[in-house]
């Protein structure tokens, strides 16, 4: 279980790594959020900006749910719809190499009276989507309706509550103190001024539920690696402009707009080669700021990078999702508390918390996410 252990230790550093991002970054949202508003192209249009990716067991325990929330503060910062012509994808690697073996591709039509037509395609193999998306159509319907998929499963798309929760203001205090060489900022958490910055935010969501066996034919419950992408037409051809696996990678470890943009356009299979230094550098720096001397801090940085890259969510489909073990990500998983405890104490659970818990009411059944908030 070496990999799991390393990942577990490394996860909180994703959050602490934001300290460096804050020094360099400028936008309010550039830190703390999971993947909200993470790079220039997606900031132009919230409809192509992934907030979070979730992977968890369905109500039918033989099914796996892949959910993607998009569009930070939907309705307030961007329209509550999907971008027509964009291609939204769940990519799934079933052999551990972070190269997609299966892609579920969702395309939307134009907005008409608040809803959009949609098409779901499945592509097997690692080929990039063609301009026409590629793949075999397995479902057609419209947003706000459950679309049955041939081969089993279903898909729903539309406005929902954004499940993400986090005391972003307190974290900024924590970060400022940390930069000054102190952990006194931890006192900003749970200080009577606690507040979930994401309270009341909505996002548009794509929720896909498929039989485990459909993910890897011939295997009842495969272990999978999952990430979400969004591609748009640029200069006449389709280009990936957004991706997300684990929460916070791009917002924390990459610090300039061009770097963040490049990251969003990259493939997980190349992450180890391309981003190890960046991730290790930040993790090492934070360890040093926490007072951990070299060479331990350097070794730790390397371990973090090795654990976090490639940037995908790993999930054993025979189990319940549990982010504390980096096994999938459930809607209510408190990634922030996990991060704090791992960082400070080295354990996935413990006394540290931002005192923000899940504020959403989820459905036990498909499509699971909470009803949208009234704005």
């Amino acid at each position, binding site marked *: 279980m070496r990999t799991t252990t390393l990942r577990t230790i490394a996860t909180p550093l994703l959050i602490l790594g934001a300290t460096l991002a804050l020094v360099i970054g400028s936008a309010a949202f550039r830190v703390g959020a999971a993947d909200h508003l993470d790079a220039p192209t997606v900031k132009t249009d919230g409809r192509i900006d992934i907030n979070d990716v979730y992977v968890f067991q369905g109500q039918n325990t033989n099914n796996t749910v892949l959910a993607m929330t998009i569009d930070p503060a939907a309705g307030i910062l961007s329209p509550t719809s999907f971008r027509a012509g964009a291609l939204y994808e769940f990519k799934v690697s079933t052999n551990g190499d972070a190269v997609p073996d299966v892609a579920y591709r969702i395309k939307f039509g134009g907005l008409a009276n*608040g809803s959009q037509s949609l098409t779901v395609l499945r592509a097997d193999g690692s080929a990039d989507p063609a301009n026409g998306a590629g793949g075999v159509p397995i479902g057609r319907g419209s947003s706000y309706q459950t679309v049955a998929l041939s081969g089993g499963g279903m898909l729903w798309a539309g406005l929902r509550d954004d499940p993400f929760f986090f005391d972003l203001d307190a974290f900024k205090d924590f970060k400022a103190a940390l930069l000054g060489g102190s952990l006194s900022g931890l006192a900003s958490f749970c200080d009577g001024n606690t507040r979930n910055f994401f309270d*009341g935010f909505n996002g548009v969501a794509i929720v896909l539920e498929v039989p485990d066996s459909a993910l890897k034919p011939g295997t009842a419950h495969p272990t999978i690696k999952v990430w979400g992408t969004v591609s748009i037409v640029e200069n006449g051809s389709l280009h990936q402009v957004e991706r997300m696996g684990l929460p916070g990678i791009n917002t924390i470890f990459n610090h300039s707009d061009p770097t963040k943009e490049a990251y969003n356009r990259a493939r997980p299979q190349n992450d180890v080669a391309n981003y190890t230094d960046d991730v290790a550098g930040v993790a090492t720096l934070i360890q040093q700021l926490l007072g951990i001397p070299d060479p331990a801090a350097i070794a730790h940085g390397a371990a973090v990078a090795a654990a976090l890259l490639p940037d995908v969510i790993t999930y054993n489909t025979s189990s319940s999702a549990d982010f504390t073990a980096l096994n999938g990500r459930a809607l209510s998983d408190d990634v922030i508390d996990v991060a704090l405890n791992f960082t400070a104490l080295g354990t996935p659970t413990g006394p540290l918390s931002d005192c923000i818990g899940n504020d959403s009411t989820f459905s036990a059944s498909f499509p699971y996410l909470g009803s949208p908030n009234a704005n």
Partner: protein
Amino acid sequence: MSTRSLLSLDRTDGRLRRSLIFAAAAILVMGGTHLLGAERPVVRPETPAGGLAVPSVPSIDLGGGDTGPGGLVPPSARVAFWERRVSATGTNPSSLDLIYLADAYLERSRANGDLGDLTRAQTALGKAAAVTRDPAGVQIRQALVAFSLHEWVMAERLSDQLLAADPTNLAALGLSGDVYLETGRIEQARARYVALDGLVSSPAVWSRLGRLAFLTGDPASAIRLVSRAAAAAAEEGAADAVAFYRFQLAELYRQTADLDLATAQYQLALEALPSYLPATVGLARTREAQGRRAEAIALLEPAVARLPQPETVAMLGDLQALNGDADQAERTWALVDRIGEVARATGSVYDRQLTIFDADHDRDVAGAVARARAELTVRPDVYGYDALAWALFKVGNVEEAAVAARQALSLGTPDPRIAFHAGMIAAAEGRVGDARTLLNLAVRGSAMLPPLQVPVAEAALASLDMGITP
């Protein structure tokens, strides 16, 4: 409120005064949102007298008209959303809520021309600055507000600070380039835009490069770049971005006297965003140039009632005068005077439009010269020199007017308004060849001229052709 009822209000009417205060200072021509970095849209600066609309700084695409099912909540509802959140935090406001509240005020000011929203944004940003741990996020917005208020020095200082911290800050790069461009520092602007172009591929960059190309005498490249921006925006589908880039393209076609293409682009802009006033006004100008005055007036009257910008009100007065209704025209022009009075009390963002108006209509020409000189000290671009040249010409100072006109022509900007002013000055100096060349350009591009100046330009050219110095 119709134009007539607006104009008939008592001069001391408080509502009118408030309306004018909001309209004055505002620059606020509902610019599109333009898309690059982390930052949100900003109010676009006043269309320069004789210039194209300026793209706003990089921003998130927020829209403004894309409301309704599946769209954004209306601007006022967005303001209310963030106001509720700020209010809920009581004496411990969240800096992030304050920043987004400021953004919402900026968006609303874009939609309704309310200067008060710019000052409210400033207030919110001031509070955010006091509590934020991310000063850069506040500073870029403060820079945007300063830019919108034509506070060039402040906008430049803030964007420079941001770039010193992060040379790849796209929003700061765009804003810095815009400040340089608006203040006549072309090569510095070019350097910023080229740097931006090297970092990101975006309609906002092509739009800026297009404006730069036009200013420096390359309208063909300008059209190519802005066409690319418009096509990309159409692909993205955000209504206000589509409207803005279509409008910018339409203005280029009007500048180059291609009125059919201009009309088509204005109509596409209005198709995307029917409430987009700059396109309505541009279409009205085109209709007048096409001899369709009744249509032009029908387009202008509601536009003036909604946002009485000096240039637009002046044009309406011109059309009324050309229709033979001198009394109504005088009442309309009196409204421009009132806007000027209020603007002078609240800010200087309309100075350039008012200078041209006064010079065109031989009203406060001495004041126009003074204002033009004052503005040149902080904004020495070609349109600033053009305004000074025209005002000086109108007070009879032809010699100094000619010096300013040469500055206005120095970049080779193919704007018929600059050509008209410079041509009249050249004629007065007895430089017949230059005058004929310039006035030919002006008459060919008469769709850009204020309606009452078209016969002036034509008569002057005819005189020259007959061997008579006007």
